[in-house]
């Protein structure tokens, strides 16, 4: 399959011009009814938006131009993300765009790139990520899903869990155990698996906010060709680790806490709480916590923008952003009093606000993507050089 040809050299534009282009494009095409959505939308809902972005060549800002991406510099990349967030665009099926794509570009074979990247762009392949298992959460390397070679195929058996939107995915990339005789990190491989085959069972898991987004995926004698191995056999841990640096800064974005803060401020105005000096004092404190979270994020973004690099200290962002976001929602529930016990939209004199949902939803932020505890362990050891 061929890669789309690039339409334009975005990096040659001024930042202001690029920002305007991005704002225009998103502003024109983001479907109104999906803006600032409370939940992860289904594929059927966002497919049109996905295809629109794809046809404009704006689907993947980060991939190189030769593979159909925009090849944006870090500075332009940030503008892209900022404008996308400002537009309120819904989250699409992005595991292929955000994770598998970069992995294939960095570690895949040219054949793998030619086969898979265009199909991500076209929406033909929708990927999910099979990492966690029931007994491998924080301790991911202890995963037990096994694969062994039978002729030219891997046969995979095991169970993955906390797989986002697996019910809409056509494919899964997964970490699997291919050698049980060595140190746990050394016996893991990175496999691509077609979900459309017997032996794959997806069970959605309802979360405490009432939504079904996470899944269990059971793999029972599931088969995948030998050439679906990315990187070498038993090199899966390195392949997966290469992805993490990028994720750590995104997972520390202040976006969620800013949204929560805006909601809290809207609530405060509608409910008359702004006349309550004690409440305003607490609101101000949390507001400054959110703004400081944004300042810290900007500091790392600036480093990226100017081509610098950073290490594990970026974990500070995720700890602070996610815990602050939780505190924002806790303050809202508390300030709402009796209304804070109700589910769904609560009428506040004409305008309605869902008070409880953000509180419940953001409980997950300090758990997924490396829990706050795991992040603290990393910082203690790798940044503060405290002894083991």
């Amino acid at each position: 399959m061929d890669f789309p040809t690039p339409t334009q050299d975005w990096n040659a534009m001024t930042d202001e011009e690029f920002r305007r282009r991005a704002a225009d494009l998103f502003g024109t095409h983001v479907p109104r009814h999906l803006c600032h959505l409370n939940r992860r939308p289904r594929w059927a809902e966002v497919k049109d938006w996905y295809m629109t972005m794809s046809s404009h060549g704006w689907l993947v800002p980060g991939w190189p131009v030769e593979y159909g991406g925009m090849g944006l510099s870090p500075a332009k990349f940030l503008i892209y993300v900022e404008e996308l967030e400002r537009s309120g665009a819904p989250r699409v099926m992005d595991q292929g765009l955000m994770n598998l794509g970069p992995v294939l570009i960095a570690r895949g074979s040219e054949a793998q790139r030619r086969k898979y990247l265009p199909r991500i762009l076209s929406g033909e392949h929708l990927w999910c990520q099979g990492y966690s298992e029931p007994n491998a959460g924080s301790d991911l390397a202890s995963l037990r899903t096994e694969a062994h070679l039978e002729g030219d195929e891997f046969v995979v058996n095991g169970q993955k869990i906390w797989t986002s939107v697996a019910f809409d995915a056509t494919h899964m990339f997964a970490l699997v155990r291919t050698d049980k005789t060595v140190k746990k990190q050394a016996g893991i491989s990175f496999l691509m698996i077609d979900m459309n085959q017997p032996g794959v069972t997806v069970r959605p898991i309802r979360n405490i906010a009432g939504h079904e987004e996470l899944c269990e995926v059971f793999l029972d004698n599931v088969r995948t060709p030998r050439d679906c191995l990315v990187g070498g056999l038993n090199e899966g841990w390195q392949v997966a680790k290469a992805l993490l640096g990028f994720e750590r800064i995104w997972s520390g974005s202040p976006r969620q806490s800013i949204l929560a803060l805006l909601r809290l401020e809207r609530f405060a105005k509608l409910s008359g709480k702004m006349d309550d000096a004690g409440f305003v004092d607490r609101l101000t404190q949390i507001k400054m916590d959110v703004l400081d979270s944004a300042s810290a994020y900007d500091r790392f973004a600036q480093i990226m923008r100017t081509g610098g690099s950073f290490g594990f200290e970026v974990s500070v962002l995720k700890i602070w952003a996610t815990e602050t976001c939780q505190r924002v929602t806790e303050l809202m529930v508390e300030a709402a009093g009796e209304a804070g016990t109700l589910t769904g939209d609560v009428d506040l004199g004409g305008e309605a606000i869902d008070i409880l949902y953000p509180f419940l939803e953001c409980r997950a932020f300090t758990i997924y993507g490396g829990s706050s505890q795991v992040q603290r362990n990393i910082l203690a050891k790798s940044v503060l050089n405290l002894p083991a």
Partner: protein
Amino acid sequence: MLRDSAADFVRASTDHKRLRKLRGTSPGYDAALARQMGELGWFGILVPEQYSGLGLGFAAMAVVVQELGKGLLADPMVPIVVLAGQTLRRGGNEALKERQLSGLASGSLAPCVAWQEGLGGLDASAIETRADATGEGVRLVGRKRFVAGAGGATGFLVTAKSARGCGIYWVEKDAPGLKVSFEWRADGTPSGVVELDGVLVPPASVLTAPSAQGLLGLERAIEEAAVMASAEMLGVMEAGLQMTLEYMRNRVQFGKPIGSFQALQHKAVDLYVQQELARAVLGEAVQALDGGASGAESSMIASRCKSRCSDAGTRITREAIQLHGAIGFTDEYDVGLYLKRALVLSGWLGNASAHRRRFAALSAQHAEV
């Protein structure tokens, strides 16, 4: 003894699957279980013997409610027995009291109090519902909100205002002009919205005639119910913490039970500290209620109790999710049910912030005396 029988009941009857099925339904609790509680006499614990109750005190009530809280089974109790029962006891209409309290004690009647409006709040007199005098009695016009227990209520004690002050009126659940609808609370139980479109209350159904002091009895009942809701909260947080400690002892990551990680241990200890503070303040509040503490004194300890228990309960169950990790975030794992019940109990009858405000106001008055 009462604790043992309540604990036995909880052991035998706790069923979180049933609880999940009841979510979003009215009355939101299992009627058969409520009947059993009635048979065990628990609805009559606080009802004086003259009305066929047991005439026991808050210490006994707290024990039962705390135990039921552990199994998330307390739901119909506090709104009916404490809030409505104690409001009735202090009413001036003996015939109505006789009928309602004995029905309440036997479990055959389930009166509820409809006192809040708008966005809620602790000031019982901040209402707009009117009681307009007519030839046959009064007509009630207004809209009540946050009525706990409304799903199974056989009728409502409605507060309303007239020129002479606030009074309390009994309205049967099927009275013409009454409309009951529901908002749904975090744990899936219904919160009643009671609309009164000219509901007629004959003189025989006036519990407390309107006056400047018409709501004093209700205000005291609210305090008592707040302390008993705190007892339920104690049970909820105890069960939530126990479940978490159990998980920490058994869940293995990095080759060790996660409960052996010192950072998690210290987090758990901080939750335990909160639980024990809650237990201590609740104990003091119950003693004050049973010991007939004076108005200001009992109000202050009641606010301190509701405030601490609300904070401790929400914090413990919230952090229980974090200590469980991803599984705690799922609906199918039980710990989330405890968080949601804690949210409901925290907000009902004034949360920690509301009671801090009230405590500060009481302190200031007290200091002026």
